[in-house]
């Protein structure tokens, strides 16, 4: 058992180190402008535009459920008009970036790992290398940069739609006063909440793209290898997002309190 645990920890640390090296290699590639801009635009379209439907549905229904549940609790203590403020802060700080990132990890992370994994299995990555093209320049950097940019934009969309949907449910379905709802929303949701959400989304974009590219580039040969890489890309991205979220909440909350 002990040997098994030691081996698991060693493999986990080695994997973490390799992801860190991939991140460093991507950074070096980016600052030396080796990125393929046409691929970057395509990835921005694929990660950003094509993910909108799933992200918007998630944002809207999360906002509605959160609004309804908060209303039922607050109604007991006659604080109905604080509902939208709670929804606003929750969506900006936590639920907006985290749920957006989890949905994108499921959709985009799986696609990235499967595409790069298949390229590896069919020797297309070796072909890239023989054509004097670094796989990090051509495959990883466009995806990482596109995900860094797309995630904050998707998060903003998701938050806006969530708050809007919550407002509709609160005002038109549950009968909360519209004016006081907006006043409280604006009073208790600060600029820093939006900034925290965007910083988190920016970081999660990098996490999803890096882990998914890493899983694709290192997948075992064969169909099973691609399948496993795809699953691991989604699972590891999601877990990393949730763990990172805890630490980011502590750090960014502390920083915000000092401002």
């Amino acid at each position: 058992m002990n040997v098994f645990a030691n081996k698991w920890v060693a493999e986990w640390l080695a994997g973490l180190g390799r992801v860190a090296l991939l991140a460093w290699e991507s950074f070096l590639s980016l600052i030396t402008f080796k990125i393929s801009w046409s691929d970057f635009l395509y990835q921005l379209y694929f990660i950003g535009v094509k993910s909108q439907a799933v992200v918007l549905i998630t944002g809207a229904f999360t906002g509605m459920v959160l609004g309804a549940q908060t209303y039922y609790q607050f109604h007991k203590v006659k604080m109905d008009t604080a509902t939208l403020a709670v929804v606003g802060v929750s969506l900006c700080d936590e639920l907006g970036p985290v749920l957006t990132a989890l949905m994108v990890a499921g959709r985009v992370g799986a696609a990235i790992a499967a595409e790069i994994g298949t390229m590896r299995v069919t020797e297309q990555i070796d072909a890239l290398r023989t054509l004097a093209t670094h796989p990090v320049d051509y495959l990883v950097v466009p995806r990482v940069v596109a995900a860094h940019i797309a995630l904050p934009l998707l998060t903003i969309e998701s938050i806006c739609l969530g708050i809007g949907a919550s407002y509709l449910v609160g005002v038109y379905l549950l009968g909360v006063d519209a004016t006081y709802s907006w006043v409280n929303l604006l009073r208790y949701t600060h600029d820093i909440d939006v900034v925290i959400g965007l910083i988190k989304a920016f970081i999660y974009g990098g996490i999803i793209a890096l882990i998914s590219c890493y899983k694709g580039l290192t997948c075992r040969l064969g169909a099973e290898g691609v399948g496993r890489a795809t699953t691991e890309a989604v699972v590891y991205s999601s877990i990393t997002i949730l763990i990172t979220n805890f630490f980011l909440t502590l750090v960014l909350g502390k920083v915000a309190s000092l401002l």
Partner: protein
Amino acid sequence: MIEARNLRKGFGTQPVLDGVSFRIENGESVAIIGRSGCGKSVLLKQLIGLMQPDAGEVLIDGENIVPMNERQLLRVRRKFGMVFQGSALFDSMTVAENVAFGLRRHEHLTEAEVARRVAETLEMVDLPGTETKNPAELSGGMRKRVGLARAIVYEPQIVLYDEPTTGLDPIVSDSIDQLMLRVRDRFKVTTVVVTHDMRTARRVGQRVLMMHDKKIYASGAPDEFFASPDPVVRQFVDGVADPKETPF
């Protein structure tokens, strides 16, 4: 010039290459033959730095590429074109985009110039007018030709072929052999062909190297090599299985 010095490579506890050395001069055409799984493709990948040997040196024009990192290798790889066993075409691109890949990445040409070079190269591999097709629409032989067009469009000094005729019928194999000769003669490229197709080795190789028991077992001009009385060479050339041995 390509020179391998005492290359060793193993996977886990299984050694595949154990002291492989040879030298290929500029413009020379060499066929490397040997049984399936004897390490021919591993050797070929080490010549272009796709795989690192455990020990030994690979010299390309006198420069040892073994200690180089991936970025340093990119410069050396511009001297190479490589045709893969499974063609390895980029399946998200059309034929023209596949062939133009190297040109677009490394040569500052106008789109019109790129299109002209792509059309010329496709004409040379007998696939004119296929620019807009997708790799999935092509037969095995056509995919090999597109792979070859992609490898030679930027006129490399060295072309490596990994099992270029495997899985093709004899007529298509013959046309691929002719194509390799055409490329060799037109561009005066150094050619290294890894194959277990005896006809390809005989026709394309000006010299044949045979791998056996993790080493270069025999080498020579095709006529001399295929007439060799050595029992190991004869068994392979004649394709005779040893009943006492499991051949796979």
